[in-house]
């Protein structure tokens, strides 16, 4: 908290995460899954960084590495200037209260056999060091804060709807007054009508508490709504990182373009320049050489198979990892979306 305001709250440098599969018989051909490969980015205080990508692109793994729910294979994570990437569980404990995680599945992430009040109070007891009684009182206040009826404090998770359960997850994440919250597809499991409520709740809480978010989603419209900047991930690598409006108006990476085109548009006349993405996302066990997107890229050339394109600035604050990036539209729509 004493750090200068220029230090990003979260800085990720060249993060790798590999999962080694089970060794086959006689130890032959041990397969390694490259979930996250050489990813770097930073998040400023009070900022929301959106992270989008297809299922299996490594979004959740990356997020779990950032808050050290996973060990990193390589690279480092700086939280408020401190390297937390190699800390032990014990050393991490003071940081646990400063960074929290909201899970995707509000059904799996709440213990079915605990009452809601004790689920929300748990972080206060475990890391906050509060007494059982104080923590339960605070948990009831948190329920009010996230829009739950504290009279339902003694219920079990099964007695709540999906949206209410996600509010419980939010309350648990906020109990320790964190600075940084990772939202791992917090609304993907919810009905459309409920999604907006939860997103607005998260936005309100950000304003009130000055939270910094890493917001993961595969729904581009949700990310656009909440994010200051957006990072696009493909097969374990970042392919583009830009301020939200830049990315949506002027995507420079063919993959981002394809993602945006694939998103349903409400206006039937607008579906003109659709570039349909051919094929499936390749297996992360055997990623393509060079640029990982080349197998599905309409612009791919021989160079793309040979060299990995670095994530380099192409415009102010706009990074793209492509040998042959798309042209920027002639009319530049610059918008300063930093708040």
């Amino acid at each position: 908290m004493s750090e200068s305001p220029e230090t990003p709250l979260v800085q990720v440098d060249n993060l790798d995460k590999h999962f080694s599969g089970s060794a086959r018989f006689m130890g032959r051909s041990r397969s390694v899954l490259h979930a996250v490969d050489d990813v770097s980015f930073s998040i400023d205080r009070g900022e929301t960084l959106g992270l989008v990508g297809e299922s299996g692109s490594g979004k959740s793994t990356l997020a779990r590495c950032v808050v050290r729910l996973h060990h990193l294979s390589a690279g480092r994570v700086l939280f408020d200037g401190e390297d937390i990437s190699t800390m032990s569980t014990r050393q991490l404990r003071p940081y646990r209260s400063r960074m929290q995680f909201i899970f995707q599945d509000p059904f799996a992430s709440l213990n079915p056999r605990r009452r809601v009040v004790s689920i929300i109070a748990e972080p206060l007891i475990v890391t906050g060091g509060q007494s059982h009684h104080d923590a339960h009182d605070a948990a009831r206040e948190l329920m009010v804060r996230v829009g739950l009826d504290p009279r339902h404090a003694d219920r079990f998770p099964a007695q709540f709807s999906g949206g209410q359960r996600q509010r419980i997850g939010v309350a648990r994440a906020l109990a320790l007054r964190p600075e940084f919250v990772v939202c791992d597809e917090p609304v993907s499991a919810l009905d459309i009508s409920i999604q907006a409520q939860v997103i607005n709740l998260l936005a309100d809480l950000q304003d009130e508490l000055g939270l910094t978010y890493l917001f993961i989603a595969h729904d581009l419209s949700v990310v656009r709504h909440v994010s200051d900047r957006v990072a696009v991930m493909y097969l374990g690598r970042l392919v583009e990182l830009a301020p939200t409006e830049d990315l949506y108006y002027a995507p420079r990476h063919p993959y981002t373009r394809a993602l945006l085109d694939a998103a349903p548009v409400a206006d039937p006349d607008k579906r003109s320049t659709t570039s349909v993405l051919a094929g499936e996302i390749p297996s992360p066990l055997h990623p393509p050489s060079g640029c990982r997107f080349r197998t599905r890229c309409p612009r791919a050339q021989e160079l793309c198979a040979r060299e990995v394109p670095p994530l380099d600035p192409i415009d102010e604050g706009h990074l793209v990892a492509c040998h042959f990036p798309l042209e920027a539209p002639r009319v530049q729509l610059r918008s300063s979306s930093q708040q």
Partner: protein
Amino acid sequence: MSTATVDESSPGRRPKGSTRLLWDRLRRDRVAMLAMIVLGLIVAATLGAPLIAAWTGHGPNAQYLTTGLSPQGLPVGPGRTFLFGADDLGRDVLVRIAYGGRISLFVGVVATGFAIGLGVVIGLVAGYYGGVVDAILSRFMDVVLSLPFLIFAVALIAIVGPGLWVSVFVIAFFSWASVGRVVRGQTLSIRQREFVEAARSIGASGPRIMLFEILPNVMAPVIVYATLLVPSAIVFESTLDFLGIGVTPPTPTWGNMLAESLNYFQEAWWFVVFPGAALLLTTLAFNVLGDAVRDALAEGER
């Protein structure tokens, strides 16, 4: 401060916990209720053993040579003075069964308690930490499970000498591993669930996660196992007594009463039937109850 008023209004309709729901379902099961009534009567009879002794006027170890034995020296059958008959030494079988039940139930419940406690702890640790810890503990459980119970019990007691607590520990030692295996398996799958990851993300320690997140979710099979372990522990205890390496005479137990009856049961049927019936009824009631608990838990998966 504005929430203070709401705080106090909640306890009125506290939703039922899983234990309460289990009890509600068990109450609708007639066979389970019958088993519980039978067990209740047996427990009452053993706890009230001194009352039975006072009512009949016969002590558990006292010999009634004039009233209990015929002039030829044979034990008298069930009748007015000896409700369940007398044994070869002229002792009251009813009173001895009541006292013997205390030992059977005590050993059954206490040995099961130790076995469950040890099995749960070892199973949780093996399943949660995995890796080398799991490999060592799992192999240890395999070894315990593959030991032939009777041979080792006989050998062990030959060394340390018989006694009530020796029986308890021997039985617990040979019972915990199966509990441990079940708990380990459950823990392995529950540890993958997201709420465990959530607990880690708020900084909960391993022991706390095992105790508060995983244990409540493995309790269902543990409860079933407990109700089924009690009768098997009672039978184990009776077996040890029967072989003369459990609780030693003259203290009555169902097992050593059966052993003593071996030479006489052709003339004195009551001598074998009543202790045998007590043992059968108790284990049957526990087994029926265990099955009912299992059914009730399966019905209430939530």
